[in-house]
């Protein structure tokens, strides 16, 4: 015998819409509104999973987020989701689910041998063994341990679904739409506030569905629908299927809405889930409570279930979880559940309660229904392995805690257990002080708030329905006041309740029943942590609650101890002779329930992981065969590779063209900063190592900035456009950092300076025309303007017009050739570029990319980020002469420290390969034949101008070692290249080529 569908009832069920699904390949049927768990139970399925360590057979134990046993692999292929809780999975037509952590099959699992060996697998056993002869032994054993561990199987296939993110702002966020949450939301809406009501279930209402009451004469489902209509009509936003998982600083909460998880797959363009970042002025936490299991021998047998789950399955899904049911509870909730289930047509054999008596009205009601009541008794053991066959009821002395005689051993296929309720304090704990122990509840309730929140209902320890409704109303009013509204803004009455049953859900403090027989008593079902493990942890000194958790893994499974933490604390407290609050809880951390990682990533993944920045000439580059490469977020041409060419062929051709004729390169990505104000010159004078205050208008100057610690930060040029205005260029990589650096000094350090800085990086496109014929080409392109040596000397600035567009030109050279940087409006970039290409055709102008640029600058010994690596000084790269001695500047004093003048410092040198082989970047320099590293290679190229493989490198004491033979060692590839140390400037050392 096992569960079945009741002929009537099921508030969530649409019996007119049967849905077919498969579990472990077996075709089954449920109805719209079912969860996978309820459909399995209705189909008579008892065994649904295997536990983590011992591979024990397990059945559904809950009806909500607390589920520890019924985890399945849902869907398949790229959409396979391991460890999916069947209780939170809405049934859809064609659903496919498989049991997990078993081989070869769920009912015959070879790994269940672990259960037989379980005496060996005590808590922390792995710390005591597998050491053998050392690492080899462990590595051998670890493979098997890894395979045995884990729960479900994931897939290596990329997640095909998309996730979206949204922000929401509200006055009041109500978390949980049970009786308290609904009342709080109604009250807040009535006060005229913007309200968001989030509930993790498909249908808001919480446990209100399960109470056999009427509210204002309405059945719960009708009353709930009315309340939701009222909230929506008042402008409230209702978010079902939405788990508020995290409470962050500043009343920012994270929530995930399961938009399409109840479908076979999302509709086209529909997100699977949506992440909400909710900014709330006030939060009402109405997160409810979770029923606790009791710890007794065999308490994990499939068919043993939380009483609240048995009830929820009957009221919401019309499912009887068993044909013959025993209830075991330490509070009146057990009897009430029995009465309700009997009234719904289920066969209840007995109610077992350790107390000497229960509420007399309930006792009478049980009697009237012919349900046997055993007080002063407990369920001491279960029978049946793959499904519950019966229970052993024993007498129990609630004072001594000693088991008495056998009372009866009834057969049953379901045992509903209630050990009291554990408030869901998670969110409150994330944003408040440590939870506080409540003696009456025998559990923890929220501590004091650190953020603006109020609790209501079961999460604050109020367990009765009337109390929850009233607390919700109160919390709604409190929230309204916190948002500046008074009660007069709107008032709603409490609903009138009828049909409530007597009794209290406050538990008798029984957490476990003494062991009988050899059967294990589970505390943490999913991780197979038993009461004996708790004792062992204590014996070995792992008795603080954190050590208990970490040593036994209790509470660390996918359910995060929702049903096990309080029982474990109680057992540890007893073992240590302390009270539960003395033992305390571990810290609650986000997320409340596990959150899909993709939902937190949103769209910012794959190609959209980071934005792509393109220059206005991007498409031209691509059309001309450029291989594009990432430079930070920018895309830049690496080389324009002609058909049949290699990358190397291409850059040699491009670099040669620049040396011999003329080339053009896109430099739009350089950072550009407009520096304006009467003190602009003084400002730059303080930031750059060189002098800028006296730079004449119409001239540009190369400059280096240091960090405050004296290390090189960035280099670029500053163009004095007017006495009060400079255009500063930075490296591509540091554009943002240099701007922030400047803003820091202007606002924090020298607020008296009258200067304003603005990023104009993507205001101006830039291109450099370089080569002996650069002037000819540029002049030919200029419709207005003069770049003759007289009008535009080296470092001179002129304005002009190309392709009808105004341009600004500075005669600067990175390549060492006669060269000009041409800037124009960003949108005009392509037109100006094409005009220059056109003008340069007679001269054979060649566009060139980063590789050729690299070759040209290496030949000249010019530095880039590879040399300015955050550890090098001006002197290291041979620019000591740029350190002004006439003025202080940022970083100047710090360069006086001993390390900066250490003669052993590696300094920039050139290398020429002596055996013709290429030098690899990242090589280290050693003496011929090997030895320790003397320095490293930063940049390498084949130099067409020199006809040699050359490199730049840092070499300890390198200035005195020019001419010395060394080796460039690359042990990663077992290579050593013989090199000669040279000056880092290989080509045209006197700079005559750019001064023509």
């Amino acid at each position, binding site marked *: 015998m096992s569960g079945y569908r009741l002929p009537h009832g099921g508030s969530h069920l649409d019996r007119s819409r049967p849905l077919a699904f498969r579990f472990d390949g077996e075709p089954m049927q449920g109805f719209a509104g079912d969860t996978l768990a309820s459909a399995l139970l209705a189909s008579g399925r008892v065994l649904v999973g295997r536990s983590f360590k011992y591979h024990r057979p397990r059945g559904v134990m809950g009806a909500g987020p607390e589920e520890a046993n019924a985890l399945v692999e849902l869907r398949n292929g*790229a*959409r*396979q989701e391991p*460890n999916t809780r069947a209780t939170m999975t809405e049934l859809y037509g064609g659903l496919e689910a498989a049991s997990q952590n078993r081989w070869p099959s769920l009912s015959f699992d070879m790994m269940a041998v672990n259960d037989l060996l379980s*005496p*060996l697998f005590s808590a922390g056993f792995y*710390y*005591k063994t*597998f*050491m053998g*002869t*050392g690492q080899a032994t462990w*590595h051998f054993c*670890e493979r098997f341990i*890894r395979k045995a*561990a*884990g*729960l*479900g199987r*994931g*897939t290596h296939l990329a997640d095909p*679904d998309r996730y979206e993110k949204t922000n929401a702002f509200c006055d009041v966020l109500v978390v949980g739409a049970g009786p308290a949450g609904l009342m709080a939301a109604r009250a807040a809406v009535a006060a005229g506030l913007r309200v968001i009501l989030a509930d993790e279930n498909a249908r808001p209402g919480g446990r209100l569905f399960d109470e056999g009451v009427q509210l204002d004469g309405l059945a719960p489902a009708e009353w709930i629908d009315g309340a939701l209509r009222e909230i929506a009509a008042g402008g409230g936003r209702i978010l079902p299927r939405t788990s508020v998982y*995290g409470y962050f*600083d500043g009343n920012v909460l994270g929530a995930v809405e399961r938009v399409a998880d109840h479908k076979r797959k999302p509709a086209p363009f529909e997100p699977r889930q949506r992440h909400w970042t909710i900014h709330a002025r006030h939060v009402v936490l109405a997160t409810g409570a979770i029923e606790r299991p009791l710890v007794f021998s065999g308490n994990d047998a499939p068919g043993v279930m939380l009483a609240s789950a048995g009830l929820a399955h009957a009221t919401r899904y019309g499912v009887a979880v068993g044909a013959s049911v025993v209830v075991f509870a330490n509070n009146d909730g057990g009897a009430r559940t029995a009465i309700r289930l009997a009234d719904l047509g289920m066969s209840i054999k007995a109610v077992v309660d350790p107390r000497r008596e229960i509420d007399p009205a309930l006792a009478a009601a049980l009697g009237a229904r012919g349900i046997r009541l055993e007080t002063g008794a407990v369920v001491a053991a279960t029978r049946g392995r793959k499904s519950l066959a019966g229970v052993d009821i024993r007498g129990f002395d609630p004072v001594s805690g000693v088991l008495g005689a056998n009372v009866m051993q009834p057969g049953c296929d379901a045992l509903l257990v209630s050990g009291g309720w554990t408030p869901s304090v998670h969110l409150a704990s994330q944003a408040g002080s440590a939870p506080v122990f409540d003696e009456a509840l025998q559990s923890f309730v929220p501590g004091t708030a650190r953020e603006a929140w109020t609790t209501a209902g079961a999460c604050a320890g109020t367990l009765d329905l009337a109390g929850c409704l009233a607390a919700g109303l109160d919390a709604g009013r409190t929230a309204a006041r916190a948002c500046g509204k008074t009660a007069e803004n709107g008032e709603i009455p409490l609903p009138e309740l009828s049909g409530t049953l007597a009794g209290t859900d406050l538990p008798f403090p029984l957490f476990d029943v003494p062991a009988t027989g050899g059967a294990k008593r589970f505390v943490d079902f999913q991780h197979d942590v038993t009461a004996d493990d708790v004792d*062992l942890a204590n014996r070995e*000194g*792992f008795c603080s609650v954190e*050590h208990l958790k*970490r040593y036994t893994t209790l509470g660390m499974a996918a359910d995060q101890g929702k049903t096990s933490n309080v029982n474990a604390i109680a057992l540890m407290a007893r073992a240590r002779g302390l009270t539960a609050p003395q033992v305390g809880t571990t810290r609650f951390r*986000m*997320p409340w329930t*596990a959150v*899909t990682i*993709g939902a*937190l*990533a949103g769209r*910012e*993944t*794959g190609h959209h*992981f980071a934005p792509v920045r393109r220059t206005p000439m991007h498409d031209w580059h691509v059309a001309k065969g450029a291989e594009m*490469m*990432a*430079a930070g977020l920018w895309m830049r041409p690496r080389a324009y590779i002609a058909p049949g060419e290699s990358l190397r062929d291409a850059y040699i051709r491009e670099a040669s063209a620049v040396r011999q004729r003329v080339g053009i390169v896109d430099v739009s990505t350089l950072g550009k900063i407009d520096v304006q104000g009467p003190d602009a010159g003084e400002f730059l004078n303080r930031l750059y190592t060189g002098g800028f205050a006296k730079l004449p208008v119409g001239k540009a100057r190369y400059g280096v900035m240091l960090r405050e610690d004296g*290390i090189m*930060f960035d280099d670029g040029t500053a163009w004095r456009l007017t006495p009060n205005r400079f255009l500063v260029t930075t490296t591509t990589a540091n554009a943002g950092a240099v701007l922030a650096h400047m803003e820091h000094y202007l606002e924090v350090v020298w607020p008296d300076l009258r200067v304003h800085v603005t990023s104009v990086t993507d205001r101006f496109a830039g291109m450099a025309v370089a080569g002996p014929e650069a002037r000819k080409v540029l002049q030919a392109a200029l419709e207005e303007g003069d770049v003759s040596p007289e009008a535009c000397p080296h470092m001179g600035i002129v304005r002009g017009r190309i392709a009808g567009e105004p341009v600004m030109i500075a005669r600067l050279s990175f390549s060492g050739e006669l060269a000009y940087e041409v800037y124009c409006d960003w949108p005009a970039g392509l037109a100006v570029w094409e005009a220059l290409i056109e003008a340069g055709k007679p001269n054979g102008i060649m566009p060139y990319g980063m590789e050729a640029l690299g070759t040209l600058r290496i030949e000249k010994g010019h530095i880039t980020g*590879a040399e300015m*690596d*955050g550890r090098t000084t001006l002197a290291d790269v041979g620019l000591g002469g740029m350190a002004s001695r006439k003025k202080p500047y940022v970083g100047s004093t710090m360069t006086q*420290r*001993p*390390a900066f003048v250490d003669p052993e410092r590696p300094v920039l040198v050139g290398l020429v390969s002596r055996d013709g082989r290429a030098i690899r*970047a*990242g090589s*280290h320099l050693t003496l011929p034949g090997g030895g320790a*590293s003397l320095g490293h290679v*930063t940049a390498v190229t084949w130099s067409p101008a020199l006809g040699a493989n050359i490199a730049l490198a840092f070499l300890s004491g390198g200035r005195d070692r020019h001419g010395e033979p060394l080796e460039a*060692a690359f*042990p*990663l*590839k077992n290579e050593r290249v013989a090199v000669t140390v040279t000056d880092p400037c290989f080509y045209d050392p006197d700079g005559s080529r750019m001064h023509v």
Partner: protein
Amino acid sequence: MQKYSALSLLRNALSGHRDWQPAWRKSDPKPAYDAIIVGGGGHGLSTAYYLAKEHGLTNIAVLEKGWLGSGNIGRNTTIVRSNYMLPGNNRFYEWSMKLWEGLSLDLNYNVMFSQRGVLNLAHTPSQLDDYARRGNSMRLEGIDAELLGREEVARMVPGLDMSPNARFPVLGGLLQPRAGTARHDAVAWGYARAADARGVDIIENCEVTGFLREGGRIVGVETTRGEIRAPKVGVAVAGSTSQVLRLAGVERLPIESHVLQAFVSEPVKPILDCVVTFGAGHLYISQSDKGGLVFGGDIDKYNSYAQRGNLPVVEHVMSEVSAMLPFVSRLRLLRNWGGIMDMSMDGSPIITTGPLPGLYLNAGWCYGGFKATPASGWCFAWTMAKDEPHPLNAPFTLDRFQRGYVLDERGAGPYPKMH
């Protein structure tokens, strides 16, 4: 010490595990010791162990404010590696690696040091050059390192985004095969048990509230459990270094405390066999033996002692992991936690005598303290025993900032949030 082995496990299994002894004694403080270590985390416990083992100092105590291992030894992403570029760093971490390789046997405690390899992904040619520089630096120091091409990386890590859709395509990677992961809590417990067995008093719930001084010299500590005197007091309280040293009158240090968040997914069957780091961001991920994917990214980048971070970093880390391993998108984040990092001004640690006579400091571990645990304790023990640093920790001085000899592995400059 009760010997742990398969045999002892079997014997105890047959007797219902009734005979296991506490892993370490719950000691009460004595009035005086030869040396005191403040901080019962990984580094403090390993220091005590090596003081006892290597230097014969057994009349010593470890003082822990809360429960043993409650600091960063219990809240990290468990990665062990020695793939550093700067010689000052890689020599030290390689010594740590060598200690790790013998640690389980040395401690008679399985710390589950799993040498599954750490692979750093490279996404640009210049990043490959940087990795080559680092890998060659390692090889010249005798440390294992391999430079992998794109295809080798793809074979090693199924599920990486090798599609044209990847924003930053993988070009290759730097692998250290001997690197891997270890069971973090077990390291604390193993050291505690082994130190205890050599006579070290491990005193939990004992918070240092002040320092005892005589003539400018530190001669002990005041604690919530009374005064304890010792001629040598070592402080190993990364995360709280500034707070503890303020009690000794040291007001300013080259350290900021920052919160670093870490994450673990639900457990799944083996799906990721090595440690992988993302080169187009800051992300490191591995799969624990229990099956959860353990990963982390950047610190939150503001001073914090809260052991709790905020949403933007969470979202960014999830976006990084989904970009690198698109299958992870489908898995669920199970748990998040935060640890407080001693972020030093150059990203490298401090193991030194001083800054006051009688005081010794072990601090500034930034993201990387876990892997250093054995060598940190080993070197700190040496420094405390001999009153001078071992050559391995000689670069980790406090005065390096004043003198300019910083060890800036990332070249990020004097900005703690950047290291």
